[in-house]
């Protein structure tokens, strides 16, 4: 990085910090869901949820700083726009995770036993997709990536999430829980399913950016 302009160096560090913050939020999200599935909504879950929310807020602040830097004309216009779009997608993922926890807490949602294992699985796959996406972003910024492997995996995870989402929703509506519960559980499942969709979306943008950058 010896030849990189100072402004770009600062921007690079900010983006690195933002990605680390996003990973912390997702990590908190994962812990919260694990706790929730084991113990339901209790004070511990509330604390974990608040921690996730607080870290999400910090990540938002970092993203706002990055946007100011980019609007102050760090990076060339073509790269600037693409980086902004990718970071916005990461932000959407982080926001969605936080939203899921808040929905569970505010609506006193209980995940039916017959989909708990699938629920754990979809969370696990969604987080794997996010971590791969983060790796792709890191590689975009620091070196030429082995893009295709990540893209294939993210795509596979997204497809797996879609299948699980469909399977769980079918199970929910085939069950005899109340109609109200069916709807709110369905909404939570869909929200979680969105995480992998957003990961795939962002990954596609990274692919396009790599092609555009090729000289």
């Amino acid at each position, binding site marked *: 990085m010896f030849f*990189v*302009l100072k402004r*770009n160096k600062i921007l690079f560090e900010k983006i690195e910090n933002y990605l680390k913050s996003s990973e912390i939020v997702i990590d908190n999200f994962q812990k919260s869901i694990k706790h929730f599935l084991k113990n339901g909504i209790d004070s511990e879950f509330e604390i974990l949820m608040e921690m996730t929310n607080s870290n999400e807020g910090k990540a938002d602040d970092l993203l706002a700083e990055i946007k100011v830097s980019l609007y102050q004309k760090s990076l*060339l*216009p073509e790269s600037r726009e693409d980086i902004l779009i990718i970071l916005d997608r990461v932000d959407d993922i982080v926001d969605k995770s936080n939203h899921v926890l808040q929905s569970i807490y505010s609506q006193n949602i209980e995940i039916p036993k017959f989909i708990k294992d699938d629920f754990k699985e979809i969370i696990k796959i969604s987080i794997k997709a996010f971590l791969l996406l983060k790796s792709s972003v890191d590689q975009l910024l620091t*070196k030429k990536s082995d893009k295709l492997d990540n893209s294939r995996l993210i795509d596979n995870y997204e497809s797996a999430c879609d299948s699980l989402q469909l399977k769980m929703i079918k199970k929910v509506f085939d069950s005899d829980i109340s109609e109200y519960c069916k709807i709110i559980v369905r909404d939570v499942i869909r929200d979680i399913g969105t995480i992998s969709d957003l990961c795939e979306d962002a990954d596609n943008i990274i692919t396009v950016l790599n092609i555009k*950058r090729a*000289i």
Partner: protein
Amino acid sequence: MYRIFSGIFLGWALGANDSANVFGTAVSSKMIKYRIAVLLTAFFVILGAILQGRQGLHTLSGLTTQSQLTAFITSLAAAMTVTIMTISKLPISTSQAVVGAILGIGIMTDQLNLTGLFKIILCWIGTPFGGIIFSVLFYKIFQFVFRLLKPTLFLTDSILKIGLVLAGCYGAYALGANNVANVTGVYVGNLLTPLQAVSIGGISIALGVITFSKNVMLTVGKSIVKLDAFSALVVVLGQAVTVHIYALIGVPVSTSQAVVGAVLGIGLLKGLHLVNIKNALKVFSGWGLTPVLSAFFSIVIYFVMHLKYIP
């Protein structure tokens, strides 16, 4: 001494029009601030004019015999032509405007060095081809280097930004070195010494850059071929090298022709479907019109200034 003002006017018009060829692609793509671009251009134009502007003075002053009056008329006619084309937002050739005006004077005074004119026309034809050749060459070389180094996104960005600034400065230097002869070449031998000519010429071009160059800056590069930062760098460098070579030869040529040639070179590499043919033709037609318009103005002004009142 007032007759020098038409030369200063021409220099101002040249600066307003031609500075877009060095920083136009970078400014219109918002890679560099307009304010920084014009300050750098002004400085390096003056430097180029003073250090390497004298070669072209001899070429232009040899086309026809110039008196102070005809030198004034030449510069005025050329400046009017360049100003009209600048207001029409067309990049034009100041060299063609000056030579067209000199032609008009030569026609009226029946003194024209056709051999010298032929040499200049040959160089005009060679200029866009020089732009094409150098842009293709630089593109291939830089492409090879980038593919070898595989720089990160941030390093690429920094290299291209710094490269654009340096290429722009070199382009401005070449502009001053090559085009100062257009501005004050006609005054050498009758009103100014070569040093005075390059100094006054350089400063007047710089003034045009600072005060009136924004119009044309947004036209070059943006409307002919869609340029990315890498291509923009290659275009500016290709144009600068072409113009500098002609400065060393001593023939003032068009920076506009060089840059359009360079842009077309990129278009040829990337596929002509990227070239805005309509705008390219518009620019080329401006070049055909320029010497004709300029000759017309110089003939009319010469005629008017030689009218005598007979009571």
